């Protein structure tokens, strides 16, 4: 078990000394006040999740006051590893939508790619600006030891959570300004600017201005990440549009404004492929912008992330990312993958079935921490139930060992207790590849829990990267 703050029971890691002193000075009264202040702040700015509950309507994610801290050298390794991975994933996408070298080299079986729903046939033979398919890559990491990190999954479509990264910092600076005098915390508030620069650097061929018009395309207020959409578009100073605000005329995409049509060059879309273009993807869909794919393919607009980018973060493709890094970049992977058994292989399936009580089994297409089995934490009957599901549809599952996620000090009922955490840093891929010096630390607030998802009792923390 690795603890982020304690080297041993009595020894605090150097970079947590300041925080420890600060914690020791905080009374229960102050903790309560600050917790209430944070909650009020989050409610007021509206950083909430929609729920079906009649009384609450909207829920906020629990925020823990104790930051999670990385030293400069710890972060440097992560930074290199994440950027390496984001480059490889983009190279993979460029490859499979063009020559398919990795398939010819027999590294990834072609059925695995071409049979996937997330493989977008209409993208074949088309290369987006700068060959960037996924301009924002979120990599979910866990730490198991001082120098040991594993990638749990990649997010190449529209990773969310960056607004929490920024708002968590904002509230910490507001509530505890002194902490930022005594600790040299690398700022992250330039993320929206960098995101906008990234999007602008990905203008399509036919865009002939040095200041391309970017918009953020949202599915609307019912989407759980809606706050993030409005927050980011506000911070970038770009319009947040819904698909009904956009239309295609001739070779270009326009938005409807009170002054009449205005041309759009780059669409940062936060909607799924299926809802982009009813003419191309889902003919029965009433949402979407008819004709946008034609404009896209003829260089009239760029769509970020590219349609079909989701194949790269498929759980079945995940297994091959270390191979991709070697194949495309000629480098050794800096971050490790979790050992993964894909249940569509007979050998793997048998192993998984024999060891269910030791493994974590996930649905290939699942997310949010739902539909998974944590063997060591499950009752006999739920293991047996899962055994039946797995045998009926082995292709739909992968299995991994249960990782011993690191503990981070967390305030539980005003006491400092260890709770498990993960990390999602955000990598931008445009003219430059860059990683924001921070990320979203999610924490499993329930004692003994391994599940950090907000839908299942997860909370969040501010994530610090100390300057050199």
């Amino acid at each position, binding site marked *: 078990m690795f603890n982020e703050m304690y080297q041993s029971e009595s020894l605090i890691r150097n970079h947590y000394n300041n925080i420890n002193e600060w914690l020791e000075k905080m009374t229960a009264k102050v903790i309560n006040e600050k917790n209430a202040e944070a909650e009020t702040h989050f409610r*007021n700015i509206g950083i909430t999740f929609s729920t079906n509950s009649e009384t609450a*309507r909207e829920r906020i994610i629990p925020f823990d006051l104790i930051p999670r801290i990385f030293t400069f050298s710890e972060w440097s390794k992560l930074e290199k590893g994440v950027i390496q991975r984001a480059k490889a994933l983009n190279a993979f996408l460029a490859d499979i939508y063009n020559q398919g070298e990795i398939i010819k080299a027999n590294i990834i079986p072609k059925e695995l790619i071409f049979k996937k729903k997330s493989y977008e046939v209409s993208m074949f033979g088309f290369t987006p600006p700068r060959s960037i398919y996924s301009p924002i890559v979120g990599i979910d990491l866990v730490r198991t030891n001082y120098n040991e990190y594993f990638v749990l999954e990649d997010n190449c479509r529209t990773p969310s959570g960056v607004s929490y990264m920024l708002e968590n910092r904002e509230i910490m600076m507001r509530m505890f300004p002194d902490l930022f005098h005594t600790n040299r915390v690398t700022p992250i508030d330039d993320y929206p600017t960098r995101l906008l620069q990234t999007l602008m650097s990905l203008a399509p061929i036919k865009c002939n201005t040095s200041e391309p018009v970017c918009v953020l395309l949202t599915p609307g*207020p019912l989407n759980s990440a809606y706050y993030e959409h409005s927050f980011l578009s*506000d911070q970038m100073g770009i319009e947040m549009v819904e698909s*009904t605000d956009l239309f295609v005329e001739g070779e270009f995409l326009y938005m409807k*404004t*009170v002054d*009449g049509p205005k041309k759009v060059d780059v669409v940062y879309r936060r909607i799924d492929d299926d809802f982009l273009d009813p003419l191309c993807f889902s003919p029965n869909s009433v949402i979407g912008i008819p004709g946008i794919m034609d404009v896209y393919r003829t260089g009239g607009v760029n769509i970020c992330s590219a349609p079909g980018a989701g194949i790269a973060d498929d759980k079945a493709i995940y297994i091959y990312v270390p191979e991709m890094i070697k194949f495309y970049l000629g480098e050794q992977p800096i971050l490790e993958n979790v050992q993964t058994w894909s249940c569509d292989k007979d050998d793997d399936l048998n192993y998984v079935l024999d060891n269910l009580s030791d493994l974590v089994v996930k649905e290939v297409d699942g997310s949010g921490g739902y539909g998974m089995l944590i063997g060591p934490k499950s009752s006999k009957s739920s293991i047996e139930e899962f055994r039946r599901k797995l045998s009926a549809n082995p292709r739909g599952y992968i299995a991994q060992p249960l990782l011993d996620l690191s503990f981070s000090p967390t305030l539980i009922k005003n006491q400092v207790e260890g709770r498990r955490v993960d990390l999602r840093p955000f990598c931008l891929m445009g003219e430059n590849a860059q990683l924001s010096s921070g990320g979203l630390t999610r924490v499993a607030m329930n004692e003994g829990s391994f599940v950090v998802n907000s839908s299942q009792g997860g909370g969040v923390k501010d994530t610090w990267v100390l300057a050199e």
Partner: protein
Amino acid sequence: MLSRTAEYLYWISRYMERAETNARLLDVGYRMSLFPNPNGYNNEWESVLAAAGAIQGYKNKYNIIEQKKVEDYLFFDEDNPSSVFNCILNARSNALVVRTSFTPESWLAINKTYQEILKLKNNNFNASDLPNLTEWTIEQVNLFRGSLSSLLRNDGYNFLYLGLFVERADNSARLLDVKYFVLLPKPQYIGGNIDNMQWSILLRSLSSFRAFRWAYDGDVTSTKIADFLVLNSDCPRSLSFCIQNIVKHLTNLTCSPEKVNKIYNTLKDLNIKIQEEKIESIVDFGLHEFVTQFINKISSVDSDIQKEFFN
């Protein structure tokens, strides 16, 4: 500015204004219910429902008209599309969409109102709480309006104020109409003591009673009150004031001058007429008829704005 953004801004201030009107209407009913009722004259809650345009919806839900039910229907009921609760809910969900188009303070004002009304809704309220609810609503709406003062004077600002004055013009006109047509269907009451008392209550609920006293000398008469609420352009709730402001914010728009002109042309006559008209000739013509024409005009301006700018 996105057409949808303009539309949402327009509707946010319409909803906020409507929330205030409904709260004020409830106050009218509440005050009236405290006065002794002469025979055959106990329809204050019905007229309140009529003024709120909610009588059909209410009757679909309840068989009898009684204070507690009317209060609940107009304030909290989610089945009533214009209840204060729904107005705030709608204003807030619109604000969620366009929060980037006004100040953070405006968003906070609306969002806090929303958080509080959720709590109010979950508490049981007594009939005697009504003045507090009314006061609270007016306070919240004022908070929102105050926050608008720091906005850039751009088209977004003008759309917000267009919404406000279109809604207010409609609401004020309906209030007047209800007072004259529903409240006092029997001619013998007109000009009597009850009549004047009811007018005063109307003024109070529009927070214009003292203003009226300052603006007019002598007795409170129905003609003076009608003049005040229809023609007096110093009175911020009068039809005249509303129409002047609609014209002002419409012609201040910088987008699409030809659309602005088109709508302005349909309004020009009414605007001039209301500045020059005498209250006596309106009363001779029939206040009800005048107000009906006015309401129709506002409604066609509203649909022109929606058609020209939002579609």
